[in-house]
C-alpha cells in the first residue's frame, strides 16, 4: 500500500515538473517563466520528496526531505528575486 501511495506522489511530482517545463517554454517573457520555475517545479519537488518519504518509511528521513524542500523553496525565491530585480532594473533603468 505504501508503495502505491509513494508512486502516486512521485508521478504527481513528475506531472508538475512536466507542467513547469511546458510553462518555461510557452510563457512569453522571463518574469512569467519565473512563475513556472518557482511554483510548478517546487510543487513537483515537494511531491517527489513526499513520495520518497513514504517509500523510506522513516520519520528522520522524512524530516530531512522536508528540510531539503524548504531549502529549495528558499533558494528558488532568492533566485527569482535576483533575476526579477535584474530584469526590472534593465527595463526601467
Amino acid at each position: 500500500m505504501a508503495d502505491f501511495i509513494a508512486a502516486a506522489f512521485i508521478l504527481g511530482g513528475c506531472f508538475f515538473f512536466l507542467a513547469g517545463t511546458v510553462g518555461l517554454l510557452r510563457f512569453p517573457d522571463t518574469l512569467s517563466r519565473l512563475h513556472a520555475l518557482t511554483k510548478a517545479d517546487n510543487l513537483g519537488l515537494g511531491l517527489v520528496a513526499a513520495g520518497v518519504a513514504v517509500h523510506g518509511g522513516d520519520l528522520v528521513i522524512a524530516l530531512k526531505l522536508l528540510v531539503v524542500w524548504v531549502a529549495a523553496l528558499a533558494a528558488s525565491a532568492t533566485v527569482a528575486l535576483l533575476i526579477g530585480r535584474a530584469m526590472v532594473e534593465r527595463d526601467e533603468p
Partner: protein
Amino acid sequence: MRVLGFACLWIVLTEGDVSSAFLAVGAVASAAAADALLNRGRGVGPLSALRVIRVLGRVPLDSVKAGIDVAIRALRPSLPIRPGLVRVPIDVADPAVRVATAYLTTVLPGTVCVAVEPGGLRLHLIDRRRDVGAQVAQVAQDLERALRGGRHG
C-alpha cells in the same frame, strides 16, 4: 532558542548519528553565534517561534495551490495569462520582515516578488487583473505580529 533550533537541524541532517556528536557541538555553536551576530537584538522567544511556525504552516497549502494554478495556465491551449508588474504597499518598518514577506509572497499563487522597496514590494503577477494587495498586506501583518509581538494588535 537558536541553539535548540540548530541542534534539531543537525540531528535531522545527520539522521541522529551519535558518532558525529563532537562535530555537532562546534557546528551548532558556530551557527548560533553567526545567527546571533547577524540578527543582533532580534531575539526569538519560544512563543514567537511558535507564531512563526504557524505562519510558515501555510506554505505547503499555498505551494500546492500555486503549482496547480501555474500548471493549468501552462497546459491550457489558450495560455490564459496576463502578466504585469504592480507595486504593493506594506506598512512594515523592519527590512527583515519585508524580505520575509517577499519570500512568502513568491510562494502565493500568481505572484513573484521581484524587488523589495522601502514602502512595499514590487510584484510580478501572472494575471494582473487580480487584486493581491490585501492578501500580501495580511501576510506582512501576520509575519510582523509573529516576529515582533503584535505592533498591529
